[in-house]
């Protein structure tokens, strides 16, 4: 079965899964019946969206999903996943400093402070890697934990102050979307809009500099500026997401939706789209689940929702999921097994100079050194693929015209390759067989024709056996079997 035939239903399956997940809220009340009363109340509260805190939280979750999806896509393809982690930890002292600026929770001051801290951290990382022998991962880890340590110290000092509001700081650690207010949503929306327009305006520059930086430089794209601009935007995005997801888990919201999208798409704009969708679903899911409990933080639930979607993609993605890959590998193995069986049949018929039409299963089993049962299974496989028919009374296998053509093609590939190796590459004739065993299944038609031309249309392999030509293959199956004459119009070795 052609593997492509499987991809379409997998695609549909995937869309179905997404649809099911996406309509979760619509069926929330039905699920609510299955849970105890207090949860059900929360469900209804959620679905009806009367609670203004909930509306803000959801808006925050959606904006965050889109923002992290977009920025995360470029993080993943530029292989900067752990840079996101470093920035998200390094902003902590900036958050503390922002708080100290006005001695209160001023979102703008915290935003600026955190962004500055993140940028300084990244500058230090690049300075460290440039001026010392330290590798990039070591530098990232040092800045990550070092800055975090400074932040923890500052937070400890803030807690002592009379105005130090501990619970306010706590929210920055694990996120509490319910604490989002109108001001925060505005800033989030603004940053989201800026990010969206930057990515739109500089799309091709981002694309080329991510894919092939040397080439981008050679066509005068300002790769370094793009990188710095991206880092700046990333720092903003991380800081914006802090309050909803928390310092520790922001990088997860950047990477996981984008990685999920990476498994689902083969082109950049689709990856961006998928990443935003998964991000939104994760954001909403996180808000939803954290809403069920009294003091549950949002961040971890967002991450877990995203992780579930990632796991689904990892297994079921149409081309790149594990199921699809397993299927492809399996069909390839089956094809090779079939072709080897055909080859064995051909060899037996050749030995008899093509006088007999069929090959007994016993003879086949003996030639391949297999058990009778295994050989019977192979024969049934061939039958299923339309390459042969099995006659039960005689216990013999008869090739169909298709099967004959395929058998001849394989044998031709094998023997041509052997000839090529001995003639052109000076291999010893007894060394060529194993190589040809592998190659015969994967030679493409143009390569085979080129081989033929190069070998001047030689007609025998290094062991003296005749090489089927294209004419042989084309006319195969048309001639009738008759005494002493080949069934296929194949030249009899004389």
């Amino acid at each position, binding site marked *: 079965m052609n593997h492509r035939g499987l991809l379409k239903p997998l695609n549909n399956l995937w869309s179905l899964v997404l649809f099911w997940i996406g309509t979760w809220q619509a069926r929330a009340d039905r699920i609510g019946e299955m849970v105890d009363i207090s949860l059900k109340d929360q469900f209804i509260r959620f679905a009806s969206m009367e609670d203004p805190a909930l509306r803000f939280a959801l808006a925050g979750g959606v904006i965050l999903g889109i923002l992290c999806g977009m920025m995360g896509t470029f993080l993943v*393809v530029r292989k900067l996943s752990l840079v996101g982690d470093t920035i998200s930890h390094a902003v902590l002292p900036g958050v503390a400093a922002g708080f100290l600026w006005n001695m209160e929770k001023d979102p703008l001051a915290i935003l600026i402070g955190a962004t500055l801290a993140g940028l300084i951290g990244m500058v230090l990382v690049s300075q460290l890697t440039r001026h010392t022998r330290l590798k990039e991962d070591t530098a990232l880890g040092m800045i990550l934990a070092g800055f975090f340590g400074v932040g923890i110290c500052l937070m400890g000092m803030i807690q002592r102050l009379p105005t130090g509001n501990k619970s306010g700081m706590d929210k920055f650690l694990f996120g509490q979307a319910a604490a989002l207010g109108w001001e925060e949503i505005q800033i989030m929306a603004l940053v989201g809009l800026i990010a969206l327009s930057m990515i739109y305006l500089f799309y091709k520059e981002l694309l080329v500099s991510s894919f092939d930086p040397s080439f981008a430089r050679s066509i005068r*794209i300002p790769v370094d500026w793009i990188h710095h601009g991206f880092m700046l935007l990333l720092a903003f995005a991380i800081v914006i997401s802090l309050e909803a997801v928390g310092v520790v888990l922001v990088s997860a919201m950047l990477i996981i939706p984008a990685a999920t999208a990476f498994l689902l798409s083969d082109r950049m704009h689709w990856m961006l789209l998928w990443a935003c969708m998964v991000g939104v679903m994760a954001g909403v899911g996180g808000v939803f689940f954290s809403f069920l409990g009294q003091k549950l933080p949002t961040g971890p639930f967002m991450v877990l929702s995203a992780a579930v979607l990632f796991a689904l993609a990892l297994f079921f993605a149409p081309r790149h999921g594990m199921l699809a890959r397993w299927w492809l590998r399996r069909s390839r193995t089956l094809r090779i097994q079939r072709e080897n069986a055909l080859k064995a049949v051909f060899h037996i018929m050749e030995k008899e100079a093509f006088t007999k039409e069929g090959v007994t299963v016993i003879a086949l089993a003996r030639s391949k050194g297999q058990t009778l049962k295994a050989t019977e299974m192979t024969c049934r496989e061939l039958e299923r693929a339309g390459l042969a028919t099995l006659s039960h009374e005689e216990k013999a296998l008869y090739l169909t015209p298709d099967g004959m053509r395929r058998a001849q093609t394989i044998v031709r590939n094998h023997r041509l390759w052997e000839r090529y190796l001995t003639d052109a590459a000076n291999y010893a004739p007894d060394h060529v067989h194993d190589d040809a065993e592998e190659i015969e299944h994967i030679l493409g038609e143009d*390569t085979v024709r080129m081989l033929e031309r190069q070998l001047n249309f030689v007609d025998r392999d290094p062991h003296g056996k005749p090489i089927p030509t294209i004419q042989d293959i084309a006319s195969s199956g048309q001639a009738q079997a008759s005494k002493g004459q080949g069934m296929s119009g194949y030249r009899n070795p004389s």
Partner: protein
Amino acid sequence: MSSERKPSESIPLEIHDLTVAYQSKPVLYGIDVTIPPGKLIGIIGPNGAGKSTLIKSIMGLIPIEAGWIRLFGEPGKRHLKRVAYVPQRESVDWDFPVNVLDVVMMGRYGRLGLFRRPKAHDREVAWACLEKVRMTPYADRQIANLSGGQQQRVFLARALAQECDLYLMDEPFAGVDAATEASIIELLHALRADGKTILVVHHDLPTARNYFDMLMLLNMRLIDFGPTEAMFTYEKLQKTYGGRLTILSEVADAVRQNHES
């Protein structure tokens, strides 16, 4: 050669006393060469000779310690957009979400400038370049689903789409099948017929003899530069390859055969 010669626009590449270092170790030093237009030129040398480094420093990807490089008579990056660079195949992530046509279209981006979207004309050029390398059936394939030779052809098509006058190629023949190799040579000859200048870093000495008009022998210093046959002498090749006896003996055979024929 007078150093007072006026820089000419028609000379695609002029290098003077070029020295390039990597972590305070010299990789190239004192390179002095003038490339004439409209020729197919091979850069030959052993591993570590600095061949890729030379190409990259011409493109401005590596800083220069000393000396200068002039492209079409002007220093710096002024005429860089008339130069197309085909890097070694390994330098790219093949899982990147782009297809074959996307990669070739990237060759047009250099002409577009910031904030501009590709137009229909750009698509036509990209498509024509794909035809020249015979990759049109694969236009919407993701790039990981290609053989090595096919991937190399996509990179070539991208360089063609740039419509440049000087082409710098880093080992385009490395690891490709015979069919691709033939089509690459065909392409290079077509470019040369169009008056383009092509510099190719090449790894295989015997084929270098057949492919190129001129050869640059490089081993951290420029050993020599001139027409191919004149470069294939025992002394010159020994200077280039130093103690590499195995290659040398092969080449010595080839040279002797040539003298005997």
